[in-house]
């Protein structure tokens, strides 16, 4: 029963179903303004652009989406059955051959022009672990790295030296510094970051007024987008400090990965939107006869708001807003600066996904969204992929197991159990391959890095190293 073709490599022929969803074509107008600021790294633009799968002139690789669905034969070589033979080396995984669309992680990490790597993706796909593993590898390859994590598992946080939430980067002990690199890590404290923003934009008296406002306190602790916004704010701060040459950012575990891009914009547009002008209006329009008409509408809206919110909440909101009044410009500028930073050449987004339908669907949306926003995508990391090392189909394994199960002997029972286990693993690997092939077919221009599932949970540097070691 040896020498049979690997069931896993013979992957889906139905991968051409589901064409890519039509991308929004509205983002064109933004293209012109996207490359203005952050013009520092220019020489190595080519190199990074190559790694990003973008053309050097900044136009995104829109071809896979604008072109009609391609025939299956056009797909990268990943669909060919793997040709590597079992080499008997324990633990060697039957990975596919390197395909043209593979993400060269070391090239990305080593490129001095890469200044920021943002790991994003839906919840539960291993973003935090991936971000930490990338940061560690980059540091051990000689770069000065800081990793900003949002919500690390307790033991992983401990192994990174993150024992308290103090919003300050700490040196990670125990890394290999032979190549001259270093690693700092920090955990985001959302409320403290928000408070810092307020304090840095207002005089002390006004800052205190804001910080003590009940509406502000609720807003800073629980606004659905606050964490996303503050992660980006912290990223801007770390970048401005200039102490590191690579910043790796984990993004908040929001169910919808898209929240992360929307949140700064949402908060920004609220902070200088029409509503705020209305909320601050009652104090201002009093004597202005010329604005009577406007004042009429404003009065209607304010009284409606009062009815809904109750007058005491409305008063809190109004006093918060008028205290913030002088800071609007600053908030807006910061939000815009962060946005430009994310579009800059030195930034690389990595979308993390697990080989599961939901995670891949989110990843698809996310890659399209990034393209629309002109945010540079380095590639997709497929986390926790299962492989089989044995070239034996699930069907054959099960048939053999059944045959063996009839024998009473202990040896036969053991062999049968392991064959069933193998069949189970084959089925899982096959399903994952089908899902990821479909993703690749719809996004041929996106480089992919597959990381094998680890047997145990990851909570130390050794574990973090192992995740990427297997991929190289």
């Amino acid at each position, binding site marked *: 029963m040896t020498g049979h073709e690997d069931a896993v490599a013979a992957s889906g022929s139905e991968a051409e179903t589901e064409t890519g969803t039509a991308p929004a074509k509205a983002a064109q107008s933004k293209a012109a303004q996207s490359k203005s600021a952050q013009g520092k790294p220019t020489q190595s633009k080519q190199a990074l652009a190559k790694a990003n799968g973008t053309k050097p002139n900044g136009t995104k690789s829109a071809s896979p989406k604008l072109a009609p669905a391609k025939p299956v034969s056009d797909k990268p070589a990943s669909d060919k059955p793997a040709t590597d033979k079992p080499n*008997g080396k324990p633990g060697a995984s039957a990975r596919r051959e390197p395909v043209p669309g593979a993400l060269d992680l070391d090239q990305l990490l080593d490129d001095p022009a890469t200044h920021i790597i943002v790991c994003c993706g839906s919840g539960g796909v291993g973003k935090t672990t991936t971000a930490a593993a990338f940061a560690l590898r980059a540091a051990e390859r000689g770069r000065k790295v800081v990793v900003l994590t949002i919500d690390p598992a307790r033991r992983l946080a401990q192994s990174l030296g993150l024992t308290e939430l103090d919003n300050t980067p700490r040196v990670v002990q125990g890394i290999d510094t032979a190549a001259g690199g270093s690693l700092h890590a920090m955990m985001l404290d959302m409320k403290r970051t928000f408070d810092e923003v307020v304090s840095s934009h207002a005089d002390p008296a006004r800052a205190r007024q804001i910080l003590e406002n009940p509406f502000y306190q609720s807003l800073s602790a629980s606004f659905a987008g606050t964490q996303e916004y503050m992660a980006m704010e912290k990223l801007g701060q770390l970048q401005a400090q200039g102490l590191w040459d690579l910043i790796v950012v984990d993004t908040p575990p929001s169910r919808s990965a898209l929240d992360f891009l929307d949140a700064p914009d949402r908060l920004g547009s609220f902070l200088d939107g029409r509503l705020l002008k209305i909320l601050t209006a009652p104090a201002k329009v009093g004597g202005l006869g010329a604005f009577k008409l406007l004042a009429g509408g404003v009065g209607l809206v304010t009284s409606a708001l009062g009815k809904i919110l109750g007058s005491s909440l409305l008063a809190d909101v109004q006093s918060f807003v008028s205290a913030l009044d002088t800071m609007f410009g600053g908030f807006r500028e910061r939000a815009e600066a962060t946005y430009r930073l994310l579009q800059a050449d030195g930034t690389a987004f990595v979308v993390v996904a697990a080989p599961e339908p939901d995670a891949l669907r989110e990843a698809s949306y996310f890659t399209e969204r990034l393209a629309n926003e002109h945010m540079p995508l380095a590639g997709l990391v497929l986390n926790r992929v299962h492989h089989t090392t044995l070239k034996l189909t699930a069907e054959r394994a099960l048939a053999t197991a059944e045959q063996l199960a009839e024998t009473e002997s202990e040896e036969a029972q053991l062999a049968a159990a392991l064959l069933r286990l193998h069949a189970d693993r084959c089925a899982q690997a096959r399903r994952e391959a089908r899902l990821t092939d479909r993703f690749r077919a719809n996004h041929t221009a996106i480089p992919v890095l597959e990381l094998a599932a680890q047997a145990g949970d990851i909570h130390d540097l050794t574990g973090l190293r192992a995740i990427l070691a297997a991929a190289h």
Partner: protein
Amino acid sequence: MTQTQPLTPEAGSAPQTGRPQDWSGVRLHVVTGKGGTGKTTVAGALALALAAGGGAGKPGRRVLLVEVEGRQGVAQLFDSAPLPYAERKVATTANRGEVWALAIDAEQALLEYLDMFYKLGPAARLLRRFGAIDFATTVAPGIRDVLLTGKTCEAVRRRADESEPRKFHYDTVVMDAPPTGRITRFLNVNSEVSGLARVGPIRNQAEAVMRVLSSPQTAVHFVTLLEEMPVQETIDGTAELRDSGLPLGAVVINQARPNELTEEQIKQAAAPQGLDRAQLLAGLKLAGPATRQTCDALADLAAEHAQRVLLENEQREALAAVDTPVYELPQLTEGVDRVALDRLAALLHQQGAA
């Protein structure tokens, strides 16, 4: 995946096991879980199990499955078109039980609520134009959650038509809720808005919602995988929930892997020297020619599997300390469709979940 597809025999004629129902007085099942644990799938399976009631021979029930995060996960699960802000029937059981689904949209819920209670008329349009609706549903803390839980509680309390005013429109409501990390804050709307709304309509609404959520009519279930991080989040989340006085339901272990080996074999496979390869090879040879390579690959697989099983056992023990019913659902290697959902529903029923 048609709506009228009968249940598999497993689900339709689920044996009336001795296990009593754990949640007989509960009318609102809130299902939470860390991202990636499959809480939407479990919520869907639970809704089907509740709709099937006691299975064949017992009357089916009408169940509403509510989604609050705008992800259209329920529509995906039941293979239906995206759900509008309206209740739609998405599945039927063999005994004519029905699963309806609703994707609650905070903005629509707010407009509906304003219309119901304030008769704002043109002011409502103005509010929208000036961004006030957007503000209330996305920026203002807590209001969104009051709206989402408020709409859900409305469905729980809704009465059947005038001919049967004593009956509820839905026998049970299942909510596919926000993830574990946010669940207590999401449900504890009272304290969430108390900082900003000490009196007034929002406060009143929040209190009405809390009367349902903190009563024995509600049970909050946690879905987890047997991995360290989701288990830790489950333990933290259940403790936080209890502290705030909200009713804890079950822990549902999802995607549990089959364990083919005996305890003794696991111990041996996890040990440094691993399984007895000579014994394994001898076993394989009973079925025909077998090579050393096959044997080695299987032994490696066994070692990895054993490590995972031992870790999973540790996590199971940790979950047992939560001291609430624990159900276990298997990993579905072939993906989730209606047949698979029915199988999960039957398993939930057999274990006393519905």
